[in-house]
């Protein structure tokens, strides 16, 4: 890659680092893994940068790489989560805002990967159904049903936690 192209790549990656990390964290709920996903994503982006920098919606292109990377990583043996029978006790009682924060993230964590991706893309990245469908490589109808089921699951979990 030529030097000016590489400078453009570096600028883009640096500028978008925060949003890429946040999106990755919402998908995987682990900052170490989120940073790994972002590292893999920007590596892939580098390989395609001469062509990628010319695409109309570069952010969408990068989100697509990120989501696909995460879904691929979910299938890898050493990335699988180890379920625990009991949750560790917090050392001190968390404040209300932390409970609220943990609540939303835990609820998101309870969704299966593709449903979680659909909810994050639709409601965090603010993408349309069509844009989400393109990234997840499925039909708009599937995104609608995945998102609806995702929200349904979230509502059910919220109701259960209140009871």
């Amino acid at each position: 890659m030529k030097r000016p192209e590489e400078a453009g790549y570096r600028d883009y990656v640096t500028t978008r680092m925060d949003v890429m990390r946040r999106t990755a964290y919402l998908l995987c709920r682990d900052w170490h893994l989120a940073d790994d996903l972002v590292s893999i994503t920007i590596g892939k982006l580098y390989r395609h940068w001469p062509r990628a920098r010319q695409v109309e919606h570069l952010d969408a292109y990068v989100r697509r790489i990120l989501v696909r990377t995460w879904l691929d990583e979910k299938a890898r043996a050493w990335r699988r989560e180890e379920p625990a029978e009991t949750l560790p006790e917090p050392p001190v009682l968390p404040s209300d805002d932390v409970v609220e924060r943990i609540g939303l993230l835990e609820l998101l964590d309870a969704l299966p990967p593709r449903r979680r991706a659909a909810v994050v893309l639709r409601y965090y990245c603010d993408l349309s159904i069509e844009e989400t469908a393109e990234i997840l490589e499925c039909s708009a109808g599937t995104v609608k049903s995945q998102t609806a089921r995702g929200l349904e699951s979230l509502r059910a979990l919220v109701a259960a936690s209140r009871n």
Partner: protein
Amino acid sequence: MSKDQFDAAIGVVPPSTVDIEAVLHREHRRARVRRVANPWTAAGACVAAVAAGAVLVLTPGDPAPAVVTPAAAPPPSPADACKDAPRPTTPPLREKASVVAGRLTTVLTDAVRQRVAAGTTLGVHTMGQYPKGTQHGPLAFFHVFSAFVSHEGGECSGGEDYFMAAASTTEKAHRGNVWAIVTRLGGNAGPAAECVPAPQDTQGTCDRRTGPHGETIVEEVLTMPGGPTVNRVNVTKPDGTGIIVEAQNTARDAKLGDAPDMPAPPLSLAQLAEVGLDPGLTLYP
């Protein structure tokens, strides 16, 4: 549900451990290796490019020929997305995958058992699940394989082709884990052949040396402050076998950032190197 709610839920974002310079370094190396290590691929690409009506411009001193395609060239098809993906460059296996897995299991299990502290027991580990839900025994190798899939937009996924094994280790109250990958060289899970800088916020040491039979050995130690330690040895054997052996002083996975469950990983760098250099740990017996 809105973006603001999600941002509020995320809370304070910890410092980034994404090292852009390390990514650039790795990609430069990858591009260089691809150009230099496989001249036949480059030659094949040239022939294909000429056949497609492209014009080759050879500039003296250029590391590789630059291809100038005619104006209004068609966009790359999905089939192109995997053309640059890493693929094994060493010969195909002569044995069935199940035979290879069985043979490697015996060698690795013996090598590890001989070196861990007395009284250490080996148990199953979640890294030894493949496919999802199928748990393999302690240090029992399994073949990880997935076909390449090209996606529109130039993305390529899949292409896994390697053997993996994992085990948890328990010695009194000390818990850790050991895992290994044995692969043909050039694929997507190959051993490091050079040292690269440790990720940000991680203390690391790396040493590259040559083994007694011409093996390239890269020994790494990675430690996150207050977190677990990872001992990893990468071995590239002249016969075309790549090996990664790793030991962690945490029961689950160092990536999860748990506190250490034992003072040091169950195998030292020297012991891991001995395991990796075991002549039985090969894909070409």
